[in-house]
């Protein structure tokens, strides 16, 4: 699929995306007003507390019902609502290119990255982008229409990389990103459990709101093995031959690994959302909206 087709497909969702809002329950840092919780008090919609009236305070903010009960003047204080920095980390390791073609996990990830980017741009957040493999190339978060098209073009033009380096990529990311924001991790998480654990520790260091979307292919979930030599796309030397029906053992191992991954995310309080390539995108976005708000 070329870039124009990709962008055309995104445009077909543009209308539906206008109403999707994704914001965490976490206090985040931002510069301008937005929809996320801020640590500052200001002119938000949510009531925080009262304080005694001082000379010069705006009379509109005086809590009159409280004056009625206590005969003292109090001023209402509200929570500030801020925008924040969004980092979309896209796994472009070779394992994502499965199966080869336009319906691969990588295509799904690119598609999701672009859609989520549009959602965050719509809610006035600054969106940045970071591919996992290859040279570290962090797209600094920015907002506005120009940044939005720059971001979408960058995602659309993205090509599959080589071997994934999760830990070193996370180290680089943590060293360069300090403002607390939202991180969307789009990956199939096919890394050694230890590397995954350590990498996520790095990511968690700045106390970001992390949403990890694990992309799976339906064949990985429910495989039908044919006779042949199955090899690692990232390292063709590593291979395993299948001569009989191995499905039962595979599913057992698959469930075991998923459980381990889930435990890691639970422990680190990271939102973990597995989807497969057949998932309806809009349903997924509404699910994510609900879940992240909890």
């Amino acid at each position, binding site marked *: 699929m070329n870039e124009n087709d990709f962008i055309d497909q995104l445009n077909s969702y543009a209308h539906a995306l206008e109403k999707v809002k994704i914001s965490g329950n976490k206090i985040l840092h931002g510069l301008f007003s937005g929809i996320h919780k801020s640590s500052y008090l200001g002119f938000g919609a949510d009531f925080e507390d009262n304080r005694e009236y001082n000379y010069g305070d705006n009379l509109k903010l005086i809590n009159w019902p409280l004056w009625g009960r206590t005969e003292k003047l109090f001023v209402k204080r509200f929570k500030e609502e801020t925008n924040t920095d969004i980092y979309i980390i896209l796994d472009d390791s070779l394992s994502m290119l499965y199966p080869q073609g336009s319906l691969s996990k990588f295509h799904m990830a690119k598609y999701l990255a672009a859609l989520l980017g549009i959602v965050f741009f719509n809610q006035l957040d600054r969106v940045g982008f970071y591919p996992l493999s290859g040279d570290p190339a962090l797209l600094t978060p920015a907002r506005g229409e120009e940044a939005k098209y720059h971001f979408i073009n960058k995602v659309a033009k993205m090509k599959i990389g080589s071997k994934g380096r999760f830990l070193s990529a996370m180290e680089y990311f943590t060293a360069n990103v300090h403002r607390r924001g939202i991180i969307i991790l789009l990956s199939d998480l096919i890394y050694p459990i230890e590397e995954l654990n350590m990498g996520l520790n790095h990511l968690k260091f700045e106390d970001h709101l992390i949403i990890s979307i694990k992309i799976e292919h339906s064949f990985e979930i429910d495989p039908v093995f044919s006779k042949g030599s199955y090899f690692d*796309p990232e390292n063709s030397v590593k291979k395993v031959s299948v001569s*009989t029906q*191995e499905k039962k053992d*595979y599913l057992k191992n698959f469930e075991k690994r998923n459980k381990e991954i889930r435990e890691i995310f639970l422990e680190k309080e990271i939102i973990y959302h597995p989807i497969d390539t057949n998932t309806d995108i809009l349903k997924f976005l509404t699910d994510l909206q609900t879940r992240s708000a909890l």
Partner: protein
Amino acid sequence: MSFLNPLLLYFLPAIIIPLILNLFPGLSAKKIPFPLYFLINKTKSGHGINLRSILKTIIRMLIIGTLILIFAHPYIKTGQRDDMIIFDNSIYTRILKNNVPIFNEGKKLLKQMRSKNIYTFNEKGLYPVKKIDDIQIMKNAIDLDLIRRPSQYNNVILISPFTQKFDIDGNMYDLFPENFYNVGIIFKSYSIIEHSINICVYSQNKDANIQILAKNNTQDINIFSGEIKKDQPVNLILKIPLDGQVKILVNVLNFKDSFFPDNSTSVYFPQKLVINLRYKNKFLEKFIAVLSNKIPVEYSKKGLLISKGNEMGSGIFFHGTTSLIKTKIFYENEGDYIIPINIRSIQKKEGTVLISSYKNEAVAIMQKKRLDLAFDLESNSKILKEPEFINMFTKTFDDFLVHYYCNSHPKENLGPVKHYAPTSNSYTENKKEKPKDYQKGLILLFSILMVFELLI
């Protein structure tokens, strides 16, 4: 042990293919990229050496080996010689000997020989015989001279009535009965202008008193009668006083009961020629004068044509006459218009003659359309290489019509007769022993192996 097709044994090393594939499973296994390959259980999978795989490999090796052997066709020579037997099933095998066709005698002989390598003829040529009873008599004669000796056979044995010359090493078994009469004609050529045919008449074994008849729809005329000495073919140039479709046939007077192959043939002789008036010139006049003596000529505006029989295919065509007209070499009436012949529209028919003033183009047309002959109107030199041109100025032109055109136009027919004395039967020794053939056993083994291959 010998093999019918020993060249196939070069493929025998192919039996190690299953072994290689078993030892290096990576060569045969389909390679599938799969990111979660590490979740597939390694302990149960793989091509580990086990009894089943060893058995399967052995069976596959045997299958390939058996298949190659089946096609190589091994056998042991026990009394049977590695000979090729060619059985001539031409029309001559219809000759009766003791009231039985010699064809039956030949088949009986073939059965005695018990050879696998019997070849006989059909319309397409030589072919191997599967069942001797399936052999049938051909409707025509066979040109034995065209047989080539295949290299893989030690000896070639020919069973034939030997009505033709045959030159091949090996034994010959002559079916032709002694003191039998064989009379026939060999049709060589004909001239539509001269109304003549050139034939060769022969008689085998005895002097024959023959009569040659020319037949058309209405008449039946004796054109030759006389005696032909044995084994001395005679060339005859005979005038045919008939027009249209004429059948020439030979009638033997002194031994009527004998078998004679159908040597009759058909020739078309047109009744008259039609020549365009304006094509007349002094050269053409000479030509026409010659023609007029032989065949009535008529003039027409449509060019020189034969008035009848175009459906049969004889024709004479002028080409390039316009250039001669321009030089006023020949014309009759000033008001006549000229219709030059389109040389490319000439259809090849039997006995077609092209008269042309453009040599090169005529040569090209002749070669392309395979015309029989062309006359060059302008060239003074006589060109005798093919395609041949005869110059109208030469003195031999008059002679040419009869002599050249008759002789240089041979027809494929039966060859000259040469009698062969019957040779001794070389098959009398050891002919009762049966050859050992492993073909059935091999096929059975192959079937069993295939069943095992499918079951395991």
